């Protein structure tokens, strides 16, 4: 592992008085798939959004592909072209059909000509298995199909890194599999991926590393086997037990500082 694809150094982020990220250090190597897990409000989405500067970090540095994107003089639009982002709510452009969703960014941002953009769009639609929906509008697609189109749209820009912000959380359970299959294929092809998710099966089987966050810090960072199967920290264990077996959770007077201490 030479230079890491993503490097986060002592990252802090506050929204007003709310200190969401409290000093994050993280490196993701080329071709690595890292799943970030943690309870809601732990700052995992904020961390992901800091990596392409959708959120401006309060302090700290973020490097992507060797470029310090937190440098105010860096051309953020140029950096973002190398970082694909997939959102929980898909965020397809509803006024454009599927093909146009893929071609417009290529043409406007990368200045590709019409034929080339169309060719790359078709390739990437095939990659996510949705060639037959090329002319459909987003509103006529299921959530799972919309999310796969969103992945294809990001891929059409030829990114070096892909960020996934809870990509299956807004989907009906039976549609999750198709999206995860696409992501698994992408991982196998060697894409560098940072995935905020609650899908433990995906994390266990696909991820090279799993990062557990809580309270704005990284609590645990290691292989899926280490973090999911043999968590060292009580907080991780507590979170995983609630996630894997939600019916067994007990009522607790939970505030964030009590998380990790099981209720009496």
């Amino acid at each position, binding site marked *: 592992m030479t230079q890491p694809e993503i490097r986060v150094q002592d990252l802090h982020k506050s929204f007003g008085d709310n200190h969401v990220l409290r000093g994050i250090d993280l490196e993701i190597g080329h071709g690595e798939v890292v799943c970030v897990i943690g309870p809601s409000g732990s700052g995992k989405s904020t961390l992901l959004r800091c990596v392409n500067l959708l959120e401006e970090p309060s302090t700290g540095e973020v490097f992507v592909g060797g470029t310090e994107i937190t440098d105010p003089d860096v051309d953020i639009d140029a950096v973002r072209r190398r970082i694909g*982002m997939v959102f929980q709510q898909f*965020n397809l*452009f*509803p006024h454009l059909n599927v093909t146009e969703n893929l071609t417009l960014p290529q043409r*406007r*941002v990368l200045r590709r000509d019409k034929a080339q953009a169309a060719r790359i769009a078709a390739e990437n639609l095939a990659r996510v298995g949705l060639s037959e929906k090329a002319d459909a509008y987003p509103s006529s697609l299921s959530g799972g199909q919309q999310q796969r189109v969103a992945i294809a749209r990001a891929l059409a*820009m030829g990114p070096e890194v892909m960020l996934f912000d809870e990509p299956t959380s807004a989907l009906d359970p039976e549609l999750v599999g198709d999206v995860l299959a696409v992501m698994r294929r992408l991982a196998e092809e060697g894409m560098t991926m940072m995935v905020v998710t609650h899908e433990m099966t995906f994390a266990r089987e696909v991820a090279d590393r799993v990062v557990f966050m809580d309270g704005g810090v990284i609590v645990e960072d290691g292989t899926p086997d280490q973090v999911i199967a043999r968590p060292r920290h009580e907080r991780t264990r507590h979170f995983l037990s609630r996630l894997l077996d939600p019916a067994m959770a007990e009522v607790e007077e939970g505030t964030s500082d009590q998380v990790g201490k099981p209720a009496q």
Partner: protein
Amino acid sequence: MTDTDTRIQPKKTGLTRRQKRRLSRAAQYAVFVAAVIAFAVTADWGRLQNQFAQAHIARQLFPDLITVALKNTVLYTLSGFVVGLALGMVIALMRLSSVGPYRWLAGIYIEIFRGLPALLIFIFVGVGVPLAFPSIQYPGGTYGKVAVALGLVSAAYMAETIRAGIQAVPKGQTEAARSLGFSPARAMISIILPQAFRIILPPLTNELVLLFKDSSLVLFLGVTLEERELSKFGNDLASSTANSTPILVAGLCYLLITVPLSLVVRRMESKALKEIR
């Protein structure tokens, strides 16, 4: 009966629900019929027809009614709309700017021009400005003058409409565009504005209807015979023929345009409602 005493008994009133409904409806119809009869009996039909529906006077209005008056009304309105839309767009973007003074200026503009009567602005643009700045010539003469006046009035309303439309586009759209590498300006043009305009098409069309009516304020500017629009034309011919038929006919011409436009708006709105799943 000791058990049932504790239950709440429905209070008996004089009328049942059905009876009340019937009574209310009967009363409303009765008032309506009485009003129609009263009007039919008291109106002097011969005089009304004489005053408002003189076929030979109506015929006399053609073809100028169409080729001059209606044409000018449409021209004034559309040119005012274009100026208003362009200016409104600029003001809306200023209102959303991250630069404070732009936001304040836009806010001041909107408050001033929404708060003033359109007629005052017409007189200001048509009479005040030419007197104060004799060197200023409106391009297109009266047409330019009217376009500016109507544009100034409508820009304030349109700016607020456009701003609301832009803000109605979900934040995720901007984020998706930015994450794909769009610059803020390009995201606005390619992604946000097309969606915003789809949202505000009904209110913008309503604004067009309002402008059609406001174009009648040209009446208060000195215009040549060839520059007359519907209201001025109707008014002039009503006084020259000493009859109100031209007013009625001019009014019908407005409705010919505004009623279909309103129907289109209603259609768009019900269609938009359906699209929101």
